[in-house]
């Protein structure tokens, strides 16, 4: 098995997958921390469906799918975030409508286009074989931007996440910051498509934070634990994907699920033990 793994690193596609995988692990953990704790997790789910529709538009029009997807997903991300204030539709209903419409659009285009059905499947569940050099550049560039923005606005983002109204009172422009968060979320979703796939990418927004929360630490440490565990899980998932010829997205998400379950069970047993001792 070790020999097979070592052999994997002689392939360019494996290196590309690892670089993109680590980039998406870092980006999704950073962005996800704020989204999950602001109770905006479902935005990721809705946007992943939008990304599917956007990729289909890209393939249908013979344009680079990810480059087409970035502006569409970012605009829709801002739209979902603002809809609560502007339109008389509850936020979760708006996400549901948009997700269903985008999936319908994607499948319709796939049906009309006929010839790109195979390609679309790799976008649905992720495939490390399809990652191109351009995807690597995009993933690294966008993740550097995301890390930079979170580093510069960390305190404002934290304050807004904990208590939006208090943040406003202290002069933080929460509306601008929410728009920034929506843009970062849209970008994260798109750069994750190649490795994780549009169907499963929302899991990578949620899992890092919920796994890190099991460690019972403060906000900054929760983000750092989320990033570290996610990098390990994504790299391990990619290895499993290579070894057993699994779709990379499925392998990574399943591994996340098992890690979350294992830590939750351990914490549960520990609490029971403490209660029993008392």
């Amino acid at each position: 098995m070790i020999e097979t793994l070592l052999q994997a690193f002689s392939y360019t596609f494996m290196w590309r997958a690892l670089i993109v995988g680590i980039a998406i692990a870092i980006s999704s953990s950073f962005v996800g921390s704020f989204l999950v704790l602001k109770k905006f997790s479902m935005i990721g789910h809705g946007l992943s469906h939008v990304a599917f529709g956007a990729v289909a538009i890209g393939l249908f029009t013979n344009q680079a799918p990810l480059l087409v997807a970035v502006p569409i997903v970012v605009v829709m991300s801002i739209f979902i975030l603002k809809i609560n204030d502007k339109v008389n539709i509850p936020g979760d209903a708006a996400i549901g409508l948009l997700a269903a419409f985008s999936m319908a659009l994607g499948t319709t285009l796939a049906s009309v286009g006929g010839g790109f059905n195979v390609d679309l499947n790799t976008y649905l569940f992720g495939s490390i074989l399809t990652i191109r050099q351009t995807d690597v550049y995009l993933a690294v560039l966008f993740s550097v931007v995301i890390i930079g923005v979170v580093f510069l606005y960390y305190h404002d983002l934290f304050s807004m996440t904990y208590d939006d109204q208090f943040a406003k009172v202290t002069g933080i422009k929460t509306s601008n910051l929410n728009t920034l968060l929506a843009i970062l979320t849209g970008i994260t979703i798109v750069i994750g498509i190649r490795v994780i796939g549009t169907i499963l990418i929302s899991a990578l927004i949620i899992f890092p934070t919920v796994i890190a929360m099991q460690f019972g630490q403060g906000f900054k440490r929760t983000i750092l634990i989320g990033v570290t565990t996610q990098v390990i899980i994504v790299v391990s998932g990619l290895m499993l994907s290579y070894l057993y010829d699994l779709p990379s997205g499925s392998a990574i998400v399943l591994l996340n699920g098992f890690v979350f379950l294992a830590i939750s069970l351990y914490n549960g047993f520990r609490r029971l033990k403490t209660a029993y001792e008392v």
Partner: protein
Amino acid sequence: MNALLKVDDLSVKYHRFFALKDVSFAIEDGEFIAVVGSNGSGKTTLIKTLMKLLKPYRGSVEYIRTPSIGYLPQHTTMLERSFPATVEEIVGTGLLNKKRFPKRLNKKDYDRIHEVLTYLDMTSHKKKLIGELSGGQQQRVLLARAMVSNPDLLILDEPTSALDQSMREHFFHLISHLNRDYGVSILLVTHDIATAGDYVSRVLYLDQTLKFDGSFREFCETQPESPFIHTHPTSATACVGGENQ
């Protein structure tokens, strides 16, 4: 005393409905004011307008000098036990209004956080998660967050609604010390005038318009038939107690 802020003929509208109408008053340095009124009387609208979260429909809120406001929201809005944040991290967000981009907390800031937590007897909880604390302790953390920037005016929005009677008295005792020791002006929105009456220097009674502005004793003497007193019988008892003293 110097005026801290002046509210002049303030009216605030939600769609066609006036939440506040022609309200005028001033807050002097070092005052401890209770804002009372039934649900929907405009109390929260008033403090949101003072904090510039809402815009006046007409009239004005004039701060005599650049405002430094500490804000303590309703306790029930903050009860998210699983939120992964330490006491120190939460109190630190109270200092962000004094920071410039890119905002960073330095050693002096952490010393100030420690100082405020010491004043509130909370230093031993500094590294604990907010969800590990009791309701009363969480309330003190949020008070520390409001106090940490040394505000001129502390706005408290029904801070004791989720606390039991002994914790309420302890809380009012604490903020009245803050008012006396540090000269911080306090604007307290409360239903609990029965407990707060012992501490405040002035009562504002709102029912869309400002129905009363004066001392607690005058409030008891002039407002016995007000809807607020009728719907809050403990207030009537407190007024009777106050007259007997």
